[in-house]
């Protein structure tokens, strides 16, 4: 089977209460060193989008807020869980369905993780299993 190729770049972050990033992952097939140098930009964009996410989350019943912010060529999509944990995706190409599926799968993985008695809520996620799942879902839904 031919490996699917990631188009564009995605930066995914789970943001807990008090704006603490709990889990970060980048999905990209680019090995451009320039992108390495601008990795902080993803954090800037995702962090600044939290203002709009916090505004949007009270306006809809859906957990998936879709695209909430835009900065230059980057879009920011978001998903807010019942416990107000925010999933933020910074991406440079439109892939609403893929991101939606990714969010719902990650949400399920996150629920399972939060049921784990060894995981304390609103702390950094260090579970290798969770990381593996995120990678898997990233490959599955964010590549075309």
């Amino acid at each position, binding site marked *: 089977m031919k490996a699917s190729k990631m188009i564009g770049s995605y930066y995914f972050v789970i943001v807990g209460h008090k*704006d*603490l990033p709990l889990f970060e992952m980048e999905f990209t097939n680019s090995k451009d060193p320039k992108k*390495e140098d601008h*990795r902080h930009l993803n954090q*800037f964009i995702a*962090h600044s989008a939290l203002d709009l996410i916090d505004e949007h989350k009270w306006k809809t019943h859906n957990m998936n807020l879709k695209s909430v912010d835009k900065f230059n060529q980057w879009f920011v999509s978001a998903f807010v869980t019942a416990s107000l944990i925010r999933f933020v995706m910074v991406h440079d190409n439109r892939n609403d369905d893929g991101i939606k599926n990714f969010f719902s799968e990650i949400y399920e993985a996150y629920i399972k993780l939060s049921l784990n008695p060894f995981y304390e809520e609103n702390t950094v996620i260090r579970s290798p299993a969770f990381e593996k799942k995120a990678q898997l879902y990233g490959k599955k839904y964010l590549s075309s």
Partner: protein
Amino acid sequence: MTQEIQFLLDKVFLPVIITSSLGKANELCKQRSVSSFTELFQKFSRNNSDLSPFREEADSGVSPFSLRNIPAIFCDEKTQTTPITENQIDTSLAEFVKTASQNFSYREFLDNFFSAHQKYLRCPEVATWLELYQLKFLSLINNSLHETFWQPVANLKIVTTLNADPVSLLKEHNISSDGYNYVDSETVTIYSLVHDASVGNDDFFLEKLNEIKTVFEKCYILKLNNSEQENRNADQFPTKNLQKQLSSSELSSVRHFLQDIVTKEVTPHIHKRIAELSFELASLKKGVAGNILSTTRKWFTGEREPKTANESKATLSGIQSDGEYLSSGGEQKLRRAADLAFLVGEYVLAHETYLVARRVFQHDRAYRHYAGVLEMLGLCLSKLRYKRQDYSVYFEKAAEAYEKCGDQLRSERAILYLAAVDNAGGFSREAAICYISLTKENKGLRNGPLLELAAHSFRGNQPAMMRKFSLHLALAGHRYAKCSETRRHALLCYLRAVGVYMGRNWRMAEDHLYFSSARQLYNMNEVEDAFRLFSLLLRESYAPSPHESMYLREYSLALKRIASVAPERIPLVHVFDVDVENINVCSSSPTSGGLEATWGRMETFIAQQDTCFNRNPNSAKSLLIKHEPVILNIPIRNFLQIPIELFNVTLEVSLANDSADFLPESFCETSTLKKIEINGREKVLLKIELTPRKKGTLRITGILFTLAGTRCRSLFSLQSGWHRPRHSPASESKENISHPEFVVSSKLPNLHVSLSPLPPVICAGVIHRMILSITNVGHSPVQKLIVLSSSSAQLCLEKNTIFKAFESFSAYYLLQDTQIIPGETMETPVWFRSEALGEQDTYLLFSYETDTTPSSIKRRFKRIHFSTNVHPLLSASARILACQENASDLLLLMHVENTLHNTTTACMQLACYSRGWCIEPLSSSVSNERKMVGPMETLKLLARLRRTEDRQEPNYSSMDWTATLPSYTPTSFGVSISQMMSARDSMTSDGYNHDSLEGALKAGEDHFFLLVLSFEVEFSSATFGSSTAHGQLYITCLSPCQSSSLFSGGETTIRVLDSPVKVSLLHADSCSHDFRLSSTCEFPVTAVLLNTSSQEVEVGLHFKQPSDGDFYWLGKSRAAVSLSPHEQKEIHMKALFPAPGAYDLSRYSAIIRHRQTHEEYHVVPEGCQMFSVYEDQSTMAI
């Protein structure tokens, strides 16, 4: 911020007053450091965007607008009123930004940041500056021909009493100014007289005032330097800058003067003018049946100025562009009426008039005029508190219209108006979006203030959008950072932005802001602060290694700059952690080795056992001795991910008590490590030699090293763990910095102890002799030497030492009555014997003290550790029998058993110490070869003990099996036999009554024998390789006649001689056999029969078959052979093994019969002869 912006538009739309200073009027201003009255009055204007005093005003905590509150704009009569180009505006604004940036103070931010890592987001100074920037921008852009706000409404003529005839001056000016464009029916002329009380005469002033009033009806007076109100130092006005120029009373006078003019002349004139214009417009409407649209151009303006080149092009393209109307035309009057109404706050009237004007300009396709009116319509609606969607449409349309006619600046202004209105109306987020929409790539430095305005608008939103605020501040910082003159401003932006990220774990963003701030500081030549920030970044960053190397590079550059600026100062550098708690001190001599825990137990044991032991300060501080070098083991760890190289590493040392008085070289010497390479996250142990030269408390304050060509130092920190937590507020505080201290004592004895080496491999139970050499290399005598041994092996020192055995240690107390003076060496033999097998560690702790030192520290320790490999040994037993051949002789029968599985031992010499006996071979025909004892074999040795004539003194005799070994003499041991016996007594417990033995020896009994068997064993092991061990076995024997009397005390019996024929089986240790190929394993065994007697004997040998599943003998199991004297014969058999396992081959018996005497002996094997059969599975692979 929001409140101030709320009034922004009130500061833009103000009536313009032309100021004409006549005669010597400006001289009065120049005396007060102001060039003209225009400049002086403009300082009081709301529209004042002057940057110079705002810094001081902001410092004083009072808004600068408390002084700038006159609602008028003051211009010189020669002021340029033509519109300026976009490039000019760009240049002007850039200059404005640069000037403002120079005025900013970042010190407070930075100090706050370093000292407490606190967020410091508010900066009123910046908010003020942003408003001034907008004012500046709007003031620059307002000089447009399609608007009438710039047209003056009043002409203020100023004369002073310095002139002799001010009236004629005013008259002359009225005539000469007829040609100025501002002097028309729209402008009201205001006459004023300025009088300086300190210069002129008051009577003269009154006289001239009356004259002016007579001629021009009205005259406003401005009195300066009024003695009654003289109070130059009063703090009525906080503006420091102006206080230097004008006294507070003068400032007050000027303000009242201007307020009078505005309220009594300008505002009424505007109202009057509005009425006139309304009337004119109304009369025009009547004549054209109210259709002003169709008649405007035809009837009232009629004439238009010639088309510009651009306009021609527009016309050609089919779009009628806007033309320039005459100022006397109806359209301009319409616009003027609306503008004047707006100026005086008549927003309803202004709105209605603008609506009419919009229709006119729209019809004329005069887009610039149309856009201007739309802008004003938006402003009117916002003033009339309409909804946002109502007025925002006008601004957006205005921006579009301006863009349509290529006026980007005014398009931008329309959006800026909208943003200002939004901010005032509480729509801060929308305002921020407006500001962001104005930023474009080609705007350069102008983007900075726009992004900063956006950031502040986000912060002013309800709820505050602090995350957007921080992002846009960072972006603004990047814009400012591109210009060298605005770096201060960039730094300020970064420092305010980083406050939002602090403590929230957005590490990359935070690191980026740290790094950018540090670079700005570096470029601003604030190298110290840049260095601190880079240091913070390196220490607390979690960036990947490429970023870290970039940080380190910049850090090194800053370090170099610091060194070049202040070469006498050594900067504090933190690129590695020092584990202070694990700093060790050890002697500079080679390390003792062994486990530190064992040494610790032994030292504690001595402290507990010795009641005289003074607990010294070693427990709190390590002890160093003057002039005695030690090595400090300092563990350091590179906390970076990238390797670092340190050069010329040494210690920074000070004396704790009087450190200021001495140079480090005078009280201690430290060695220098030339180069240390530490990989990322690697721990390294620095070994630095230190020799104290002065008594006192030595403090190690840090490590000195060279990094990137610069000499630096690193302090010790007492943090648990290697890495400091990010943003720990007290990370730099002195409480967390600990300096290891050492007590440097005066001269103490110092022992050098050496022990002659043991062979690497020794045999269990064998006594080895070593020489212990103790030298006092110190400066005072050694007393009370205690040697504590922690070993399963046994040691024996001199006989006169006191020995005490404890549960886990053995202590030897030396030097009870003597001492070792400095320079003296004492040598003493030590006997060593180990019973335990395997690798054995021996710890010898020498504890010694002196009474001559006044210090409370008296006791010192010396450590010796060695390890040896102990192998199992031969075991031997001997019996002495009566000799049948010669009654006077005795026979010695010795059983030597080799318990080793795979090592052959060679017996080389048997020596005997006795009184009146000498040992000799049984037969002279015995070969001179070494007696070999194979693995698990037992050798029987026979020797004859013959009487000698000398029975007075004990003598030594030996029987050799090798020519290489010298005969046994007492000197071969180096000690007397009595000493050896004493050593043996203290070591072994073999069941003999040692007191009796010793007594017997002393009594000169001739029935006592000491036998010494010398042997050689060759060992081969994976760890030690091949080695040869020599050893001696000591066996004590008594002659048979005496043994009974000594031990049993019963009747004397002499046992008969054992069998004359010795039977032994020769075979290998083991064999391997694949039992799958063949169910049984056959293996050859040879039985050797040796007739040791001098008679012919017959031997009947019977190999017994098993009774229960043991191995079988193959071949003749019964054999009868005859042996002539000393003959040896072999019988070959085979053993048949049914299964793998260990078998005892000693399953035979023999009957020996003398041919002559028919005497019979029954021989049975002594002990076991084990043989192993292994399963060979190597063929399975085949």
